[in-house]
């Protein structure tokens, strides 16, 4: 009990530091577990092994239940392309660096695979925190992450049996196919029955755990890695609405076991020496440099505009929690040593620590400025009596379409070079730059505009313009929150309250529904 309490204490400390620094918790937990390993406070290797295997099974299982392609929406193609190219590119880079550092072929293979995928936990957490989860590039990133999870898990059975020869590899892959058939059987056969029965939470949990251990039992019999089976068992329950229904029951298990897993993982690794730290830094450097580069180029080629493509790359610039699982499985199978596992753990710590910094607004903006634009940024003369629109992305499209029919010239300010290029191709005057920068706004004629419309995510971005011409030029600012509206009003602007507009439209529908006779059909949704 004391050992479990120590692991929970470490996890609690990790989450505390994470809450304080706003960085993801995983690297703190991993770093803490490496430190704990050095102290020898949790000395029972059998206990650590038990905890690791149980927690990683639950972790992968719950990750599998969350695997829904519906969440990617219409961006599956882009996500697939980004996911595959990044995966292959980083794996090749990892393999190359490992060979250059004189690692053996098996070690190099695992190091390559460890570098190939990005972290779903970190990616999703950052997207949620920045409220970008459901933006097109957020869905694209999510799609790429889910694809990479599947790739890693499906490659594992072959890789783990590689030393046993071709027949073993084929056998393991065959076993995986049998499990995939099982996924279909559970999805189509068992899940509808469970839904129909409406079991109480406890029996439902037991049934769900029964699926997990059933898959693992079959996997053991088929000689397929158990972690693969746990993930596939999760996928078998990932259909809507069942995954959502069990999510409430499974999330606490996931939170508990993932905390314990990351807090104990470092104890399986060798104590890192300066050489291992150096190697890990090199691998981390490759991930941090190559991932944004590859994803930005592929993303833009696949249709994303520059900034989201770059942000996608930065969000994906870390190794995955599945890299740790791959490493652990290889360690258990005796294919890699504790040193290689340490390098994988340290690379994950380094890259996960740096991701939040890389995705900060300052870094993104600095990198976007380096983007090569096709067209000149300079306007021939400062426009006047025009409609100045700040932000020209997807949200501006309907407005810009209507404004083309207006008598007034429209000028758009946007920082994204691809957006600017596309608008200019459509004959819209654009100024490329930061909508918060007074000089950019003045260049776009902010002081002489008939009206300014801000569609920027951050309403306070119009602060400099409100300070300067708020008294003479009407400035309309899109806002969602009440406190934002209050701020805009106090600065002399006109807030356009999207939430209130939606609330009013809802009330119109509600009153209409009320007045409609009970037997009459409900008015259709717009």
């Amino acid at each position, binding site marked *: 009990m*004391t050992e479990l309490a120590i692991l*929970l204490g470490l996890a609690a400390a990790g989450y505390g530091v994470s809450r304080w620094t706003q960085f993801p918790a995983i690297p703190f937990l991993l770093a803490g577990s490496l430190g704990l390993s050095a102290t020898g406070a949790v000395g029972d290797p059998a206990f650590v092994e038990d905890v690791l295997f149980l927690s990683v099974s639950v972790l992968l299982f719950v990750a599998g239940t969350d695997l829904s392609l519906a969440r990617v929406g219409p961006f599956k193609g882009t996500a697939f392309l980004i996911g595959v190219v990044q995966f292959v590119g980083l794996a090749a880079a990892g393999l190359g660096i490992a060979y250059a550092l004189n690692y053996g072929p098996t070690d190099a293979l695992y190091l390559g695979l460890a570098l190939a995928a990005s972290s779903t936990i970190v990616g999703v957490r950052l997207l949620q925190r920045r409220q970008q989860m459901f933006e097109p590039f957020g869905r694209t990133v999510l799609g790429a992450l889910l694809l990479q999870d599947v790739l890693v898990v499906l490659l594992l059975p072959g890789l783990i049996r590689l030393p046993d020869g071709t027949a073993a590899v084929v056998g393991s892959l065959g076993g995986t196919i049998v499990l995939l058939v099982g996924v279909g059987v559970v999805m189509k056969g068992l899940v509808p029955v469970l839904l129909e029965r409406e079991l109480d939470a406890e029996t439902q949990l037991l049934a769900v755990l029964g699926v997990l*251990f059933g898959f693992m039992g079959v996997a053991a019999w088929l000689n397929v890695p158990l972690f693969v089976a746990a993930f596939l068992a999760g996928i078998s329950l990932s259909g*809507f609405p069942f995954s959502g229904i069990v999510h409430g029951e499974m*999330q606490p298990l996931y939170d508990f076991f993932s905390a314990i897993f990351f807090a104990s993982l470092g104890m399986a690794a060798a104590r890192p020496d300066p050489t291992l730290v150096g190697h890990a830094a090199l691998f981390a450097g490759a991930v941090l440099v190559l991932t944004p580069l590859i994803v930005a180029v592929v993303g833009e080629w696949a249709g994303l505009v520059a900034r989201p493509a770059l942000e996608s790359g930065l969000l994906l610039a870390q190794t995955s929690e599945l890299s740790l699982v791959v490493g652990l499985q290889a360690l258990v199978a005796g294919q890699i040593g504790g040193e290689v596992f340490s390098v994988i753990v340290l690379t994950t710590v380094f890259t996960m620590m740096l991701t939040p910094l890389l995705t900060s607004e300052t870094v993104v903006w600095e990198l976007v400025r380096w983007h090569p634009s096709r067209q000149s940024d300079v306007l021939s003369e400062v426009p006047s009596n025009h409609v100045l629109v700040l932000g020209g992305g997807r949200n501006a499209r309907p407005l810009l379409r209507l404004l083309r029919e207006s008598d007034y010239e429209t000028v758009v300010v946007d920082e994204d070079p691809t957006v600017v290029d596309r608008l200019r191709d459509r004959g819209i005057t654009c100024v490329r730059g930061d909508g918060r920068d007074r000089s950019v706004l003045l260049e776009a004629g902010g002081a002489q505009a008939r*009206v300014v*419309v801000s569609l920027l995510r951050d309403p306070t971005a119009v602060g400099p313009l409100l300070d300067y011409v708020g008294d003479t030029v009407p400035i309309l600012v899109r806002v*969602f929150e009440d406190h934002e509206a209050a701020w805009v009003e106090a600065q002399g602007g006109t807030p356009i309250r999207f939430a209130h507009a939606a609330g009013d439209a809802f009330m119109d529908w509600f009153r209409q529904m009320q007045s409609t006779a009970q037997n009459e059909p*409900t008015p259709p*949704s717009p």
Partner: protein
Amino acid sequence: MIEFELLNSLGLMLLAALGVTVTVRVVRVPNIVAYIGAGLLLGPAFGLLEVSHTIELISEFGIILLLFLVGLELSLDKIKEVGTTAFVAGGVQMGGTALGGGLLAGAFGMPVVEAVVVAVAIMFSSTVVVVKMLEKRADLDASYGQIAVGVLLVQDLVVVMVLTFVAGLAGPGELAWADVVWGLGQAFLGMALLGGLIAAAARYVLPPAIRWISRMPEGLFIWSLFWCFLVVLGAEALHLSPELGAFLAGIALAQLPQCHELRQRVHPLMNFFIIVFFVTLGLQMELGAALARWPFALALTVFVMVVKPLLLVAVLPQLGHGEETSFRAGLSLAQISEFSLIFGALAVSSGLIDEALLSVITLVGLLTFALSAFLLLYSDRLYAAVQPYRPLAWLGARQEAPEPPPDGLRGHVVVIGMNTLGRCIVDRLSEDGETVVAVDTDPEKLARLSVRTVHGNAIHETTRTAADWGDARLIVSSLSIEGTNNLLAYHARRAGVPCSIHAFDRTSEDSLRALGVDYLIRSKHEGARRLLHELESREVLS
């Protein structure tokens, strides 16, 4: 089956538990009976499994979480309400049971020492079985449930004393009185020290710490579990039971606004671990020698199931409790405790009793756990059957007014998510005179509202029930979380209630339409319309 021993054992245990649960479901056998049955099959019947150290740890963790959860359910007011009753009723019941049990054992010709061991073993009831069944029936909040839990906790205190006493036994029949007195003194001092530390933490440390970490839900969960473990380790260091520590840790958090969220998170984790506990209980039962002494085992079982409840039923009316509360509280404690088995094993190792008598106690445990689970599950029906005859009237028990119908709402609007959009809708609906129930996971957002509020995540059934979901006229979600919105639309459709859901982008619109949502709240679309209207009013657009 599986190369890792723990996964192999857990897999067998959970699959067996699932198999037995599904098999006996048709005869409405309570789950815990099925779990113990699965353990009996795996262990005593077929010898497929042995209990490893980690499995024992998982079982222990299950009990700790169960008691932690019970603590989380209790406010200080509730504790004050049942404190006196628990001490008096618990004392009478334990004393009466021990006396009667001892006499019964004597009647079967047992020597005094064995009779005393039997008497002590049967005077406790099972905290785990009772709490699990109360929790399953959602009766932890009911008066009879609180009395039952109170009595069980008083018994836990006595357990500490009994263990101290047994530890003071130097050998068969020899008692080191100095050790016993020292041990009891330590226990009482420890209790006072632990209680004082927890009270100080609950007053000065926990509220700001928990408020700070609660912005990170998984952090809140892990911090709370760590707090629980800290107190459990503290209790162990002070020679108190870990269960008592977990319970006190739960009470300290129960006074905070985040306790609802915590209960919803701890509950599934407890379910997972407690299943393992019950299967392990079955695995460890040694019943072989008991069959030779079945008449005594049977008599003891009948005594535990009849006399033990009657003692409580007799004393509760004298403490002012009504017929139904007394009847159902008494029925709840009609079993011995898992501690009885531990105490029996200690008595064997001290040479006080032989293995055969331990088997008898184990058999009584198995029978009373199983039968009392049925009694607890169907206690309302049993009471309905005997109530017309008013069997407790002669004890002076007052007839309780029938339970008032739940003050459920009907025809109201449930609004989920108190972001700006949600608050706006709540305000507009209230202005129109509608009855509104606001739901959110953040208690601070709900505190500012003047309508009825429900704290919790609407994907949980308990939260939906608290919002009278099925009787609502309309369900509204203002959340910008795709998966949750889809699930709420699904639940609304299942309940036959119209719904209006926030569709924050085109992709979510498509999936919500496919789910048959009655009205999509398209915030971006409506906002853009307002913007265009504003531009029209300024004659920028015609």
